[in-house]
C-alpha cells in the first residue's frame, strides 16, 4: 500500500471526525438548526469509496452526507457555512445539513427522502451510458432504504438497463432507532441484489482499505462493462440518528464494543504497524484538521446570511433564448358570439 494513500485516507477520515464533532458543539450552542445527522464511526465507508474512483465520477448521498462532501469537494468552509445557513454555504443556505451540493465537483447532493435518490442515481448513470461517457455513479444509502419502493425500482432499472452505478449501502445497523433485525426479513441488505439480479459484495465498513478495494473492483467493472453492483458496508454509528436522538435503544456494552473498532483507530494502528508514520506525524494531521475546522467555524460565523431579496431566486431557471426558431404563429380567432 502506497504510503501517501494511507496518509490521505487517514487525513480525510480525521477531517470528517473533527468536522462532525465541531458541528455537534455548534448545534448545542444553537448555531446550527434543523436536523443534524452525524457520520462519526462510519468514516471508512465514504473515504474508502470516494477515493477509489475518479474525480469525474458522480456522487450521491443521503441526509448524512457531510463526509461524502468533504471527501469529494473538501471545502470545509462552505460545508460549515451551509450548516450555519449562510450565503457562502455550498447550497447558499438553501439546503442545510441534508442538502449539500457541488455540481462542479459532481457531488450531486445530499438527498433527504429515504430511497428517493436511488432512481436518480440510476438516471445519472443512464445519461453517462446514453452519451457514451466513461463516468460512473456512486450512490450511498442506509440499510433502512432496503424496504423502500424507490430502492427496488431504481435497482431493478439499473440492472435491467445495465447502468454504470455502484450502490453502496452504509449499514450502520439502525434505521433511526430500530435495529436491523426488526426491519429486514433477510439478514443482509446485499441479499436483495439477487432478485434484480445484480452483483453483490459485503465488506467490513470499518476497514477503509477493504472498502477501497471493493469499490475499486466494482468501479472498474461498472466502467468497462456497464454493470451495476450493490456493496454492503457493515459499520456502526457512534452517535444517535440525529442530534435529537440520545440513542437509548442501544446498550452501553454494544456501543463500547463498536468503539473498539473505531475505523480511524484501526487505520492508525495499521499505519504504525507498517512503519508508515509515527504517532507524532498522525497527531500533526489531526491538529491540522482541528485547525481547519476552527477556521471553518470562524468563516461561517463571519459570513453573511442570505440576502432577503434573494428569497425567490433559483426556484426556476431563467428563461432561455430558444436557439433556432422563436416564431409564434397565431391562429385566426373566432371573432365573437355566434361565429
Amino acid at each position, binding site marked *: 500500500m502506497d504510503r501517501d494513500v494511507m496518509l490521505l485516507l487517514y487525513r480525510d477520515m480525521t477531517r470528517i471526525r473533527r468536522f462532525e464533532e465541531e458541528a455537534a458543539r455548534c448545534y448545542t450552542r444553537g448555531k446550527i438548526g434543523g436536523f443534524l445527522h452525524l457520520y462519526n464511526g462510519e468514516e471508512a465507508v465514504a473515504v474508502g469509496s470516494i477515493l477509489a474512483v475518479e474525480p469525474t465520477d458522480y456522487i450521491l448521498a443521503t441526509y448524512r452526507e457531510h463526509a461524502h462532501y468533504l471527501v469529494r469537494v473538501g471545502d470545509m468552509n462552505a460545508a460549515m457555512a451551509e450548516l450555519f445557513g449562510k450565503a457562502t454555504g455550498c447550497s447558499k*443556505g438553501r439546503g442545510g445539513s441534508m442538502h449539500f451540493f457541488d455540481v462542479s465537483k459532481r457531488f450531486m447532493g445530499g438527498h433527504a427522502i429515504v430511497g428517493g435518490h436511488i432512481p*436518480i442515481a440510476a438516471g445519472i448513470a443512464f445519461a453517462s451510458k446514453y452519451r457514451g461517457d466513461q463516468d460512473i455513479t456512486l450512490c450511498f444509502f442506509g440499510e433502512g432504504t432496503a424496504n423502500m419502493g424507490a430502492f427496488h425500482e431504481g435497482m431493478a*432499472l439499473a440492472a435491467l438497463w445495465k447502468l454504470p452505478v455502484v450502490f453502496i449501502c452504509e449499514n450502520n445497523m439502525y434505521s433511526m432507532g430500530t435495529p436491523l433485525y426488526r426491519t429486514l426479513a433477510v439478514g443482509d441488505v446485499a441479499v436483495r441484489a439477487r432478485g434484480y439480479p445484480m452483483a453483490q459484495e459485503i465488506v467490513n465498513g470499518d476497514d477503509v482499505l477493504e472498502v477501497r478495494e471493493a469499490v475499486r473492483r466494482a468501479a472498474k467493472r461498472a466502467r468497462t462493462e456497464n454493470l451495476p453492483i450493490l456493496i454492503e458496508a457493515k459499520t456502526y454509528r457512534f452517535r444517535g440518528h440525529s442530534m435529537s436522538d440520545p440513542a437509548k435503544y442501544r446498550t452501553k456494552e454494544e456501543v463500547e464494543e463498536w468503539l473498539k473498532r473505531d475505523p480511524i483507530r484501526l487505520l492508525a494502528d495499521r499505519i504504525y504497524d507498517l512503519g508508515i508514520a509515527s504517532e507524532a506525524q498522525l497527531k500533526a494531521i489531526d491538529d491540522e484538521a482541528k485547525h481547519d475546522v476552527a477556521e471553518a467555524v470562524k468563516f461561517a460565523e463571519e459570513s453573511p446570511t442570505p440576502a432577503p431579496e434573494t428569497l425567490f431566486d433559483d426556484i426556476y431557471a431563467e428563461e432561455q433564448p430558444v436557439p433556432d426558431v422563436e416564431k409564434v*404563429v397565431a391562429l385566426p380567432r373566432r371573432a*365573437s358570439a355566434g361565429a
Partner: protein
Amino acid sequence: MRELSYREALREAMAEEMERDERVFLMGEEVGHYNGAYKVSEGLLDRFGERRVVDTPIAETGFAGVGIGAAMVGLRPIIEFMTWNFSLCAFDQLVNNAAKLRYMSGGQITLPIVFRGPGGAAHQLAAQHSQVVENLYAYVPGLKVIAPATPHDAKGLLKSAIRDDNPVVFIESEVLYGRKGPVPEEDYVIPLGKGDVKREGKDVTLVAWSKMLQVAQDAATELAKNGIEAEIIDPRTIRPLDEELILKSVRKTNRCVIIEEGWPFAGAGAEVAYRVTSKAFDYLDAPVRRVTGEDVPMPYAKNLEHLVLPNVEKVVAAVRQVLYRS
C-alpha cells in the same frame, strides 16, 4: 391550414424536438414497441431507435427518477405517464426532487424535463383512472403546469416545454386525443405562461382549460342564442398563470365564471377566483362563480359520471347567475 389531431400534434412536437436536439429522449411504459398506450408516440421508435425511445417496466417512481437524474446532468427527457393517475406513484419524485433540486442546491441544478401523459376523466374509468391532477402539481413552486385544449396549442406548448430548462408537468386530455384542429406546417412555439382569448365577447368571462374549453365553447354558443356574448379565456398554462389576460377580460366583461374539471376544494379555479376578486374587485358586478367537478371520487355508472362533470347546462346556469338572469 391543415388539420391534425391533438395526438398527431403532440407526436409531431416530440419528433421535431428529438430531431433538433440529440439530448431529447422519450421514456415510459409502452412508448416504444407498443407504439404508445394512446398512440401518441406511434412511429417514434422506428424513427429514433431504442436508445431514444425507451420502454420501461411498470415502475413510475423508478423511471420518473431516472428522468430526473438524466436531466440533472444535461439530457432533456420526456417522461410519459401512461395516465397522470399513475404519476401519483411517483409523486415524491416530482414534488420532492424535480421541483426542489434547483432551489435546495442554491441554483446549481438545472432540470430540463417534461412529464407528460393523459389526465382527467375519460369514459367510465372510475375513481382511480379518472381524476384531475393539475391542482396537485400547480400547488408546488418549482414546477410549471400546462394543460392544452387544442392541437395547435398542444404542439406549440409541448415544443416550448421540451425547450424549457425547468421541470414541466404537461397534462394532456385523454378524450381530446382524436380531436382535430388547424396546426401550421411551419415551425412554431407557444410561450409557457401565455393564455389565449379563445372567443371574444363582452358580457361574461369564461375561464376554461383543457377539455373544459369545449364545454365553455358549447355554453357560449348556447348563451349566444339568448344574446349573451361570452368571452373565453384559456390560460393554457396553470402555473405560471396568465393573470393579466384574465384580469383584462374581467375588467371588460365585469363578470367571471371559471370552469374546471377537478374537485372544487383548493382547486386552480379557486386561485383564479381569488386573484380576480382581489385584483379586479372594483370591476365585478357579481361574485365570481365556479363550475367544477363534484366533490366525490369518480363513480363508474354512466349516469353518475355524467352528474359529476361540468357540462353546458351547469355553465349556462352559472352565467345566468352572474348576470342576475336566473
